[in-house]
């Protein structure tokens, strides 16, 4: 804690500060050697595991803390949506809090009044706007805070994983609003692990790992890279903990029995690799296929016939006779559970990264229609005319 006093004293001694920053005992770099440029109308996704330095980077961009080296150049006013509840007074009504929140972002009551109707409409809280916000759900707080922040039209918007608390309808509304904001020349820095948010908003992405930039690409490429890393980490952790965890799902793979890639209506074999410490009887297992945004479960399968798990590393397999998915990217989650109690014994993709499944498409008229209306599954139909 003495470092704080020394740092503060150094501020009063400008020449002392000019020295190159170096680590002192028990310190580490929160963010190091990161360089990127974001122009008007562009959105950047910042992706990384907990402790990777995402929030520290946002704090630096927001001017809350100072870099120990290097510099940040920002043109325009920065608006931040870092934690939605902060700055709101629980005893005051939503209406009163709109003005308080705006004041904290540097706007006077007179500047907010002409925008109030838009904020009220966007938040969609109805009569709850006159209720003290201590009675609001987290989703309602999110609506209010987001509505205030975006209607004050900052030049750069920093968003830190805050949309997750809102319902689907609100999330969609926010995404549409962000797209309109980008089209009108705003810039967005988005911290999110939600593929739908990243895909919809961000053209660019950077992956942070222990404070360093390890990958830069498009938003989706960055997310794929992150999921890959998570899978590798999980596999390494499982391998390491082999002696202590009773049952783990190590891998989930798919292979087409007819072609080299998986296509619509293909016969696909699925292999779930598990490692068990002891034999387990009376076991069920299941897999579920989700849309790439992780929001909708398209289909899945549950094997309720009692299975037996042998100790060691083995596989459970099944064949999907006709995969009804249209061309696109999907996410697959799997579970092994105890049949009688239905308690999960091992999970994959639920609290960690799900497994991506790519269904390739062919260039046909039917596929074009499917893609155009974002159709997810196909039906076996016999047309009678």
């Amino acid at each position, binding site marked *: 804690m003495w470092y704080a006093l020394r740092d503060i004293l150094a501020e009063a001694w400008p020449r002392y500060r000019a020295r190159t920053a170096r680590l002192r005992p028990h310190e580490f770099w929160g963010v190091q050697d990161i360089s990127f440029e974001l122009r008007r109308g562009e959105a950047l996704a910042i992706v990384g595991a907990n402790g990777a330095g995402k929030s520290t980077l946002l704090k630096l961009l927001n001017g*809350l803390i100072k870099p*120990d080296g290097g510099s940040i150049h*920002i043109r325009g006013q920065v608006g931040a949506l870092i934690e939605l509840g902060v*700055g709101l007074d629980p005893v005051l009504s939503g209406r009163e809090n709109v003005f308080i929140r705006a004041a904290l972002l540097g706007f006077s009551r007179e500047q907010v009044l002409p925008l109030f109707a838009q904020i009220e409409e966007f938040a969609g809280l109805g009569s709850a706007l006159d209720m003290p916000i201590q009675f609001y759900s987290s989703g309602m707080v999110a609506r209010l805070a987001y509505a205030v922040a975006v209607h004050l039209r900052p030049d750069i918007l920093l968003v830190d994983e805050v949309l997750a608390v809102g319902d689907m309808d609100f999330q969609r509304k926010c995404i549409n609003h962000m797209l309109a904001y980008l089209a009108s020349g705003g810039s967005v820095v988005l911290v999110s692990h939600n593929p739908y948010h990243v895909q919809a908003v961000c053209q660019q992405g950077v992956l942070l790992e222990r404070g360093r930039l390890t990958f830069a690409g498009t938003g989706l490429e960055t997310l794929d890279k992150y999921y890959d890393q998570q899978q590798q980490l999980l596999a390494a952790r499982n391998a390491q903990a082999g002696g202590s965890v009773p049952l783990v799902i190590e891998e989930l793979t798919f292979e087409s029995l007819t072609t080299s890639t998986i296509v619509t209506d293909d016969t696909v074999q699925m292999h779930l690799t598990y490692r068990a410490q002891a034999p387990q009887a009376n076991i069920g297992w299941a897999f579920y296929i989700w849309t790439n945004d992780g929001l909708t479960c398209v289909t899945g399968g549950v094997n309720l016939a009692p299975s037996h798990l042998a100790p060691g590393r083995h596989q459970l397999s099944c064949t999907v006779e006709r995969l009804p998915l249209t061309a696109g990217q999907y996410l697959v989650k799997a579970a092994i559970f105890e049949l009688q109690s239905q308690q999960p014994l091992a999970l994959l993709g639920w609290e960690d990264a799900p497994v991506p499944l790519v269904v390739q498409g062919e260039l046909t008229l039917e596929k074009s229609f499917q893609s155009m209306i974002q159709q997810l599954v196909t039906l076996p139909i016999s047309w009678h005319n």
Partner: protein
Amino acid sequence: MREIIYNSSSPLADLRAFGQTVGHDIRAVLRVGRQLFVRNLRVQYRQSVLGYLWLLAPPLFLALTWTLLSKANLLQGRQPTVPLPLFVLTGIFLWQGFVEMLNSPLQQLTAVRATLAKVRVPHEAFVVAAVGVVVFNLLVRLLVLGGVMWWYDVGWHVTLLWVPVGLAALLGLGLGLGWVIALFGLLYSDVANALTLLINMWFLITPVVYVVPSRYASVLSLNPVTPLLTTTRNWLLTGVAHPTPGFWPVVGLAGASVALGWLAYRLAQPHLIARF
């Protein structure tokens, strides 16, 4: 469009740019501070039955206790030239103003710690709002004091015109020390605990409820609150225009402490947030 550059150099390295930033921030501080002040007044006693009575109840009970102790001759010393209850009540109201100001930067900034860590807002705005509330509370108490002075038939003196100077110095000293206390208090939680203890001791060595004993006058005058409190009380009650020794140097000290305390906090701000 103005370009903002964040780097590791001290803001004092470029005094002109520092002055421009401060000038820009002053407008924001006043604008945000005014709204937060109104908010603070609204929520201060929102879920309370007795509401604004709580502004007066604690000092009134404290004054009553000390008056009874004095009347029971438990406190030895010189008697004031004005009625004892009025003397004690005035001292306690002034002391209360000083203490509230001393405490307010740390209290306010601690209460909004989470906000400061996430939202870029001038910290001074919260302190300005707190200063507003302390001044408001003091004015309400002075109104009540006016009623009590009328009750005891204390004459109105020309020295009343000087009272705002005394009050400003008293509150200024509290604010200047409050900035420094906030700086350390946000880093070390020991400060908040020690402050309560210190204020209780400080109360006893300040002539709030007793007249300065001539034997200890030179020692007690080392306490910077003594000349400010006794002079302001004299201007309010007795009409003695000549300030107590040490008054003007302490006024200068109060002004300097506000400026230096603020500057120290301003320089410390990013390092405090990094440790929130």
